[in-house]
């Protein structure tokens, strides 16, 4: 017997516990972006338009470390490159007019994509929309809270906020280490970045670390399993 079809409300309900964390996560982006010299309005605009946590943190951290615009933008967009194939995977399930498809596409992030998955590569667009709008409000609202209280914080290092960046990236990384190739790519990426740090401007080591994904070439060239 098939399970009853899920609705927008199910999407809202399933990300509700996560939304509380996302408010805090958004607030920490607001605080850190402000500390990185992004001011008050631009972090909020960034959350509203980019809506992708790790890329936003990467851009802010590179800017704060004195890296150039090119490094910050390239690192952020490389981090978001995964949304290419993720978008391709949901595309067949996004019916309706181009505007509706556009909104669904922008709200497709790691968490909403995972919640909307119904197995065997199928996705529920209603769950995606409900979950996406919930997390969007939490992320943008949290960012606004963060920038509002950012200047009460003073030196972020006193509060250990500089350790919040690597902690967050670690928390996002670990669930992705499910395959041997992913672990090899992560190891290669970390090594490339550390080795290049003394010799290149801030930001460049992170972009160069994307070469870590080339460990997958063996697999791509090797036997095609399906």
């Amino acid at each position, binding site marked *: 017997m098939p399970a009853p079809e899920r609705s927008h409300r199910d999407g809202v309900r399933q990300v509700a516990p996560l939304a509380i*964390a996302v408010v805090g*996560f958004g607030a920490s982006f607001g605080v850190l972006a402000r500390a990185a010299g*992004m*001011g008050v309005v*631009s972090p909020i605009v960034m959350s509203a*338009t980019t*809506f*992708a946590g*790790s890329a936003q943190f990467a851009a802010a951290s590179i*800017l704060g470390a004195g890296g150039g*615009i090119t490094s*910050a*933008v390239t690192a*952020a*967009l*490389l981090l*978001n490159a995964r949304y*290419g*194939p993720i*978008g*391709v995977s949901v*595309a067949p399930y996004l019916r309706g007019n*181009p505007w509706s*498809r556009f909104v669904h*596409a*922008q709200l*497709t992030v790691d968490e909403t994509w995972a919640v909307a998955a119904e197995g065997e590569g199928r996705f529920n667009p209603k769950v995606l929309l409900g979950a996406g709008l919930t997390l969007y409000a939490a992320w943008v609202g949290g960012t606004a809270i963060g920038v509002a209280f950012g200047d009460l914080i003073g030196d972020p290092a*006193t509060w*250990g*906020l*500089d*350790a*919040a960046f*690597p*902690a*967050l*990236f*670690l*928390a996002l*990384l*670990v669930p*992705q280490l499910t395959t041997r190739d*992913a672990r090899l790519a992560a*190891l290669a*990426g*970390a090594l490339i*970045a*550390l080795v290049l*740090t003394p*010799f*290149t401007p*801030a930001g460049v*080591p*992170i972009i160069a*670390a994307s*070469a*870590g994904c080339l460990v*997958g*070439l063996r697999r*791509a060239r090797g036997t095609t399993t399906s």
Partner: protein
Amino acid sequence: MTAAWTIVVLVGLGTVAIKSLGPMLLGGKPLPRGVSALVALLAPALLAALVAINTFADGQSLAVDARVLGVAAAAVATWRKAPVLLVIVLAAGTTALARALGA
């Protein structure tokens, strides 16, 4: 335009374009298998680099300071499947405490 605004505009436009690519342009056609296999490995490679840099880089030199203790706390919390928010709070709290104690 300031550096921050330039970054906000370029990252915003680029991200919107990447997210739109599949649903708006490709019409559901899958990426070539080799390409999607590589793209799937971009995230772990970049995230690991971000962990390493933000833990050990101090400008253009490498340093071991109070951040390492915070990240170690974060690693334990992540391993114990703590929520992301708790992981971040533990890391910041541990590093702040270590600095207050003069580490």
